[in-house]
């Protein structure tokens, strides 16, 4: 088979999708030139434009809302689902038909991700779709756009890297991989977004990165996108004289991003107008949010501006006289964004957690504390000894209360504002200064919005042609819960032990691991295990049985389950099995159950992506 001509990186973002590619033949060593694909999409009824990004929104129109021909794309498409700019614009006026943030729903543990649940809470006759279908739809749009521009090199045949948040759990990764194979992608690899941002930085430096970092450096990647904040730590190590990058830790899934900032500003202006006796309706608030975003960008980029007028246009044709004019001042923006989202806090600060109301509707688990620096403090403290077991690595001082990063790389459109970059740097350096550590350096990234797609394309290229790679493996160790055999005591839950199934840092394509413990599974009946992950327990090996642990070390994930087929065996028979874990070449975790008696076989243990309510 011919080697694919292109290496393609797809950023499947919460608010935007982008596709970058590298033509492998035209690359020479570290001169890897990537390009951005322009994505044709509907921008208004009947009008198709090419834009560098595809907004991750799907609009499910009413059958009489548009003329059928007005929704045609350059390829055969389903007029019942509109993706991109038109979907986003249409959703501002008709939100009940808009599917948004599907990616955040994809890793929501409390819902069935293959069931049509989006948009949530809609009138009965509005069609819905599942978070999984939404991902498939975006990928299919990108595939069709690509195949239209490169008819002789279909996307399905190329080397494709799809990025996922570093904080995605194994189930969400598997769903992403499944979505990619649903659109026919054959050569797929998953890549964590902060790693992609770092790859993009490495590629932009054209080999000069080796001068900018040294062995013993710890790079902190802060990626604040439209809807999510993703944190990663990458250590610079040495292997046979060559610099190597090793991802040592990833943060939790934090639903907090640039959109929150625009909303906050809009809310502030809305309150200001309310004090003047002006009430805004929903449409006007949307327009105000839009105006605030532009005012924010203008104020944060140009430090000479003191204030920017924000005008909410009238909805009717009478523009003059009915439009509402107000102002956003530099002080308000800096106060709200810097103090609200990047507060100056101690390293001991932790994000506030409010008690959730008992009867919350099923919604996205948005971060409850908007202080990104507090989330950062919690992350760095939690990972205080992340580099402890790295070979040949400069050991952290034993009194250090958090992991000391030596360099910071920013990613995401939010950090286009120099003020916000400086703020994070000054807070981090203040923490470092308090522990007598040298201040962290700033690594300059070229394009904060499209870096993830470019980095992913670069990664797809170096996978096939050689080049610098970030080592990492699994970002968590994983455990199954085992209930101890003990006499039942009313009011006491049976004691739970955790059996380590997957060690930390199990790499892609390495030999599968198998704890020696045996389980008795009943043939023909679905069996479930409680499943846990830990981002800090690095020493546990497969087969280790834990009886005690502190609650902040473990996160309970969705159950895993298996169903032993009854062929060759009697229904109800108990078969002894061992569990085996491996990380596939694609990059997702695969669990199998291997029977110890009878014919050799492998049974897939699947992640439960359905609701965990019926546990």
């Amino acid at each position: 088979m011919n080697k694919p001509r292109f290496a393609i990186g797809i950023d499947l973002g919460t608010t935007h999708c982008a596709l970058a590619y590298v033509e492998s033949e035209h690359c020479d060593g570290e001169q890897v030139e990537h390009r951005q694909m322009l994505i044709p999409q509907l921008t208004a009824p009947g009008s198709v434009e090419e834009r560098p990004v595809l907004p991750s929104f799907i609009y499910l129109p009413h059958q009489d809302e548009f003329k059928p021909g007005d929704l045609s794309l350059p390829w055969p498409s389903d007029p019942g689902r509109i993706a991109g700019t038109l979907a986003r614009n249409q959703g501002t006026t008709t939100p009940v038909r808009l599917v948004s943030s599907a990616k955040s729903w994809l890793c929501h543990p409390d819902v069935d991700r293959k069931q049509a649940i989006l948009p949530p809470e809609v009138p009965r006759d509005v069609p819905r779709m599942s978070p999984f279908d939404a991902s498939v739809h975006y990928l299919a749009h990108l595939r069709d756009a690509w195949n239209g521009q490169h008819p002789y090199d279909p996307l399905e045949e190329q080397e494709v890297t799809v990025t996922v948040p570093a904080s995605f759990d194994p189930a969400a990764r598997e769903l992403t991989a499944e979505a990619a194979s649903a659109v026919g992608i054959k050569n797929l690899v998953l890549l964590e977004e902060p790693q992609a941002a770092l790859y993009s930085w490495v590629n932009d430096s054209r080999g000069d990165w080796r001068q900018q970092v040294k062995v013993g450096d710890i790079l902190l990647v802060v990626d604040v996108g439209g809807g999510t904040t993703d944190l990663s730590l990458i250590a610079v190590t040495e292997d046979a004289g060559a610099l190597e990058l090793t991802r040592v830790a990833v943060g939790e899934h934090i639903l907090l991003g640039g959109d929150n900032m625009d909303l906050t500003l809009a809310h502030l202006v809305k309150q200001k107008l309310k004090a003047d006796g002006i009430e805004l309706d929903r449409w006007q608030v949307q327009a105000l949010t839009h105006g605030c975003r532009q005012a924010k960008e203008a104020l944060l980029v140009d430090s000479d501006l003191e204030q920017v007028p924000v005008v909410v246009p009238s909805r009717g044709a009478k523009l003059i006289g009915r439009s509402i004019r107000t102002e956003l001042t530099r002080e308000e923006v800096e106060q709200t964004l810097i103090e609200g989202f990047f507060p100056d806090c101690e390293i001991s600060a932790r994000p506030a957690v409010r008690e959730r109301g008992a009867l919350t509707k099923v919604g996205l688990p948005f971060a409850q504390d908007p202080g990104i620096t507090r989330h950062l403090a919690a992350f760095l403290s939690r990972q205080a000894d992340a580099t402890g077991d790295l070979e040949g690595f400069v050991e952290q001082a034993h009194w250090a209360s958090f992991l000391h990063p030596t360099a910071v790389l920013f990613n995401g459109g939010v950090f286009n504002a120099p003020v916000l970059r400086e703020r994070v740097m000054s807070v981090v350096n203040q923490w470092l200064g308090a522990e007598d550590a040298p201040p962290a350096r700033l690594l300059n990234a070229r394009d904060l919005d499209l870096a993830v797609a470019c980095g992913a394309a670069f990664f797809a290229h170096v996978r096939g042609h050689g080049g610098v790679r970030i080592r990492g493996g699994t970002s968590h160790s994983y455990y199954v819960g085992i209930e101890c055999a003990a006499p039942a005591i009313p009011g006491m839950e049976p004691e739970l032990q955790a059996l380590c199934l997957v060690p930390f840092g199990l790499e892609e394509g390495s030999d599968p691991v198998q704890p020696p413990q045996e389980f008795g599974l009943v043939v023909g009946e679905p069996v479930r295990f409680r499943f846990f992950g830990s981002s800090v327990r690095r020493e546990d090996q497969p087969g280790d049985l834990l009886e005690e642990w502190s609650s902040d070390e473990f996160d309970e994930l969705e159950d895993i389950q298996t169903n032993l087929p009854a062929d060759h065996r009697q229904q109800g028979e108990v078969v002894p099995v061992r569990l085996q874990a491996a990380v596939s070449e694609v990059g997702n975790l695969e669990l199998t159950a291997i029977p110890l008696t009878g014919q050799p076989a492998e049974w897939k243990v699947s992640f439960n992506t359905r609701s965990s309510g019926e546990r």
Partner: protein
Amino acid sequence: MKKLKSLFGSLFDRERLQAWRARAQPAWALVRTYGARLYKYGRIGAREAWIVLQRLPIASLSFARALASPDYAEDLRALHADQFSTPGVGSPRKPAVTPPPPAKAAELEKAPPDSALLLLSLLQKEGRFIDFMQEDVASYTDEDIGAAARVVHQGCARVLREHLHIAPVRTESEGAQVTLEPGFNPTEVRPTGQVVGEPPFTGSLVHRGWRATDIQLPKIATSHDLHILAAAEVEL
């Protein structure tokens, strides 16, 4: 023995060579005179052939086009048989269907309305351009108009930025002395004031001019009615 033989052989060769040279001398003189003549006429011939060959593409194109297009063949026939100086003018083309078009001073092309309508709808969608223009501004205060103008300016500027690449025609700053060389393009630069004499003209740049270097308008579905610049909205 062998050595001797080879020595003898080479001697023999030298003798034969001399004999050959004596015989070849007159023949060589002949070749030189005729060669020079051949070279001279050959060069003239090649130059003429090249001039003719340069016309080969247009000749073959005319040949092919005359075969393919009856109108073109008719034009050519008129050119050769009726001695019309300009092909296509005056040759009565299909007289039964269309009367001969009168000779025009210049062809004025009518711009198709589609792009204009499309640009207007973009300006309205992003910048409320039509709303603004359709209003009577006389009854409003400057403050009200200023507030609305911001919406219009922000939105329309975005349309221009995204769909048209606009660059100044002259890169000099306004007020600078510029010289218009003979043969300047009057579409690009318009001389005003004392336009007398022959170029080069020298004057000061009053306006830098604008040039659309690139236009990227959206592709429109054939079924879409462009005359609707903005749809009426009904909130349910």
